[in-house]
């Protein structure tokens, strides 16, 4: 494989550096070799109009991670934030070495900004140093007399200044410094400041280039009838009626993945309708008769899962923590509690339904879609079509939401198979019904908690055993507790149930499952002890810091937790009197290194509840962009309310029964609570922002419902009938 990339550098009128695909102008061109895996010039372009464009490896799905990464680069470079634009670099043979670095890979886990904190700053600083070196040569002045700021290199002694792009063609020939000097955080002008998303204008015009908007000359439109049950297979189909419908051009079948292993790399068998418009394809689909062998999952429902739990039919088990002797402590304790919590399947429901547009020409495939996992998509296409990855290009468009769904590769592979079968460029569009029915749902989990109190009313043992649906390939699924409460006798055991319906990663993934039951249970322990649930948590968290210390990673997380809990008492009137039907609840959760404490106020009525206020206290170390971070936490709170209040899905006959927004509801404008987000910065480990606001919401709400009504609800979504 040819790993060497050459950049043809042309002397553009007005300076500037065009990088994309080896620009060659009519002027004489010099060839500069750059290493896609190690050169900032591979992804940073200093344009002749003074703007800076970054083509990054991370995916934009509304979480604004690419803007965050661009801020790190722009700060170190010394660029004006308003001059920076970002997009995602296409994945192909040439960019694969770049995608194999931490700049590429999968986008997810709220990890982009904090894992690339060092690399992006280093990249920006290295470009700064190369530009300064180039200016130093041009002016024959020492490097130490030059500064790079506001998009220019300036020599204050002589009053000379030159825009970055005018130095670019010289700078790019210099060796990339391996350890450039980074700026002092005290001097940050961009990082740590509220800044608009780099794509702010595009987003407000509604003109961002979503995958669903892609068109190609000669493009056809396709819709797919997929096997409605996980693991089922296609027996036969009859297309005569569909073929007679307006605009329909072809109907054929595509195979599912040869063997279902990791669900993230599986796609379903289907019957494809190809037509001259999306509408024609959707309509004609209803007239295809398909015979499926639904397989054993065709009879599955919640009783199937309950039976597996009852019989302890697990496909995998792991002891996630095991300290002391919680069984003995529990057996001899003064007061004990045993409770069961259940989290049900939840859908992603991103507003842009899944879609992908593909063109296949022999062993060359080009796909336009939104994906958190272009490398996975590329590998899956190669496998499904029996071609080499070298011929595959994946263009990743900004997504109209993803929340984990677009980390699966199913919709990418399908489009390649459809384009091959249709022998034309094709856009495959999923209807809302498709998007729901063929989701990879937030898993089901049943969690049993046993806790005990000593004679002082302090927790002295916790045991948690849970059963969660998933695949043994989901190495991340059997989660530990967070439990920042200093328990010396603690055991957490995770058991995996085989999944009768597809499951995957849903915004905040296992932390959502874990925090839901954990913080409901902790609240119940507080009430068992006859103590205030806020003070109970604070005192236990303080005790944890005292016994563990603050010097290691876990200690920094524990002390962060204490500071956040203390901030609750300093900021809110926790004990303030509320009207009779209102209650206040608190919950603590962690996602990665980000700790979040949420306090919810909820109004309870007969058979219903309304979240009226949420305060979130967020500890993530340094906050790169307070405006965009606040946006994420507020969005996460609303995401959480939708899940606890409206997320109910019915699982019967191997299928989730709900299909569209006439059967499923989401939080709307008229139900938005008052929200205040409080960031507490510290010098501890940096955490992410996209997901951490979610896990604490549901338990805070249920704890508030208990405070308001005396009724303890233990399921997600909440069973509102219990409030009648």
């Amino acid at each position, binding site marked *: 494989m040819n790993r060497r990339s050459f950049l043809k550098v042309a002397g553009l009128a007005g300076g500037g550096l065009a990088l994309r695909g080896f620009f060659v102008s009519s002027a004489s061109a010099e060839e500069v070799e750059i290493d896609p895996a190690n050169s900032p010039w591979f992804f940073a372009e200093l344009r002749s109009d003074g703007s800076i464009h970054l083509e990054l490896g991370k995916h*934009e*799905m*509304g979480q*604004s991670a690419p803007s965050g990464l661009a801020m790190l680069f722009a700060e170190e470079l010394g660029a004006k934030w308003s001059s920076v634009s970002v997009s995602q670099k296409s994945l192909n043979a040439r960019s694969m070495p770049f995608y194999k670095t931490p700049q590429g890979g999968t986008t997810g886990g709220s990890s982009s900004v904090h894992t690339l904190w060092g690399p992006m700053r280093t990249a920006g600083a290295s470009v700064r140093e190369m530009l300064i070196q180039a200016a130093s040569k041009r002016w024959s002045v020492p490097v130490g007399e030059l500064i790079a700021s506001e998009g220019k290199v300036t020599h204050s002694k002589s009053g000379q200044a030159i825009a970055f792009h005018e130095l670019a063609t010289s700078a790019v020939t210099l060796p990339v410094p391996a350890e450039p000097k980074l700026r002092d955080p005290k001097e940050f002008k961009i990082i740590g400041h509220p800044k*608009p*998303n780099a*794509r*702010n*204008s*595009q*987003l*407000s*015009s*509604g*003109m*961002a280039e*979503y995958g*669903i*908007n892609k*068109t190609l000359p000669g493009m056809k*439109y396709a819709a797919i009838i997929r096997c409605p049950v996980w693991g089922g297979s296609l027996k036969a189909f009859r297309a005569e009626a569909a073929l007679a419908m*307006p*605009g329909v051009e072809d109907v054929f079948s595509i195979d599912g993945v040869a063997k279902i292993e990791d669900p993230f790399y599986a796609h379903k068998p289907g019957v494809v309708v190809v037509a001259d*418009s*999306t*509408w*024609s394809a959707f309509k004609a689909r209803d007239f295809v008769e398909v015979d499926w062998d639904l397989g054993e999952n065709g009879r599955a429902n919640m009783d199937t899962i309950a039976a597996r739990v009852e019989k302890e039919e697990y496909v995998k088990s792991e002891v996630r923590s095991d300290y002391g002797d919680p069984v003995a402590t529990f057996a001899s304790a003064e007061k004990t509690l045993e409770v069961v919590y259940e989290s049900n399947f939840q859908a992603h*429901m*991103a*507003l*842009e*339904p899944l879609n992908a547009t593909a063109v296949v020409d022999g062993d060359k495939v080009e796909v336009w879609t939104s994906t958190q996992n272009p490398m996975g998509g590329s590998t899956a296409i190669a496998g499904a079509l029996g071609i080499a990855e070298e011929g595959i290009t994946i263009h990743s468009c*900004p*997504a*109209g*939401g*993803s*929340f984990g769904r677009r980390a699966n590769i199913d919709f990418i592979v399908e489009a390649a198979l459809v384009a091959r079968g249709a022998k034309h460029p094709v856009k495959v*569009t999923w*209807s*809302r019904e498709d998007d729901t029915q063929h989701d990879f749902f937030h898993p089901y989990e049943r969690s049993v908690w046993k806790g005990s109190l000593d004679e002082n009313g302090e927790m002295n043992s916790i045991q948690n055993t849970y059963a969660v649906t998933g695949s043994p390939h989901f190495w991340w699924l059997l989660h530990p507790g967070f439990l920042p409460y200093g328990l010396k006798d603690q055991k957490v055991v995770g058991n995996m149930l085989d999944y009768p319906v597809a499951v995957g990663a849903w915004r905040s993934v296992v932390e959502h499952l874990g925090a839901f039951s954990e913080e409901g249970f902790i609240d119940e322990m507080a009430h068992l002890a006859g103590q205030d649930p806020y003070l109970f948590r604070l005192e236990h968290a303080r005790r944890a810091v005292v016994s563990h210390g603050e010097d290691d990673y876990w200690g920094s997380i524990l002390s962060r937790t204490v500071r956040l809990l203390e901030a609750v008492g300093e900021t809110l009137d926790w004990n303030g009197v509320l009207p009779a039907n209102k209650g206040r609840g608190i919950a603590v959760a962690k996602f990665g290194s980000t700790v979040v404490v949420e306090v919810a106020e909820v109004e309870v009525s007969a058979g219903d509840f309304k979240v009226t206020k949420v305060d979130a206290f967020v500890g993530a170390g340094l906050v790169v962009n307070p*405006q965009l971070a606040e*946006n*994420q936490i*507020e*969005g*996460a*709170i*609303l*995401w959480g309310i939708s899940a606890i209040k409206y997320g109910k899905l019915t699982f019967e006959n191997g299928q989730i029964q709900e299909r*569209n*927004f*006439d059967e499923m509801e*989401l*939080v*709307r*404008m*008229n139900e*938005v609570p008052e*929200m205040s987000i409080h960031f507490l910065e510290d010098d501890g480990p940096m955490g992410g922002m996209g997901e951490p606001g979610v896990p604490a919401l549901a338990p805070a709400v249920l704890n508030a419902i208990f405070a308001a009504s005396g009724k303890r609800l233990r399921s997600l979504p909440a069973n509102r009938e219990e409030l009648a």
Partner: protein
Amino acid sequence: MPQKYTLTINDREQAVEAEPDMPLLWVLRDKLDMTGTKFGCGVGRCGCCTVHLNGTAVRSCQMPVSGVEGVAITTIEGLSESGTHPVQEAWKEENTAQCGYCQAGQIMSATSLLMANKKPTDSEIDAAMSGNLCRCGTYKRIRKAIVRAGESL
């Protein structure tokens, strides 16, 4: 059988050929390559497809093309060619969008409200905007942007 229709979109006449029941949403997106108006659900429950018919916000996924001849249709593209309509400017100032997919529909609903009422109360905003879903949860800033836009109109 496809029929010929003449539609008035953003003050221009557009000739299209489509099945009579094809929703205006898909005529815009697939026949006219006007992809600012978005598909979200197809059952009129998400608001992503919102356009104006004679200035009133409607869900274009529920409007068969055969029913919209002779009506002034305004899409997001028609608010401003440069994306600088006062409502869009307010959206930018409030850093409203996250993924942005719902925002064209949100802006169309908001503009229709503001054209009739520059100072909507909170419940008037609720009533006008609760048909537009936002899965990213940007509602708080949508409300702020509406109030801000109203002040500048």
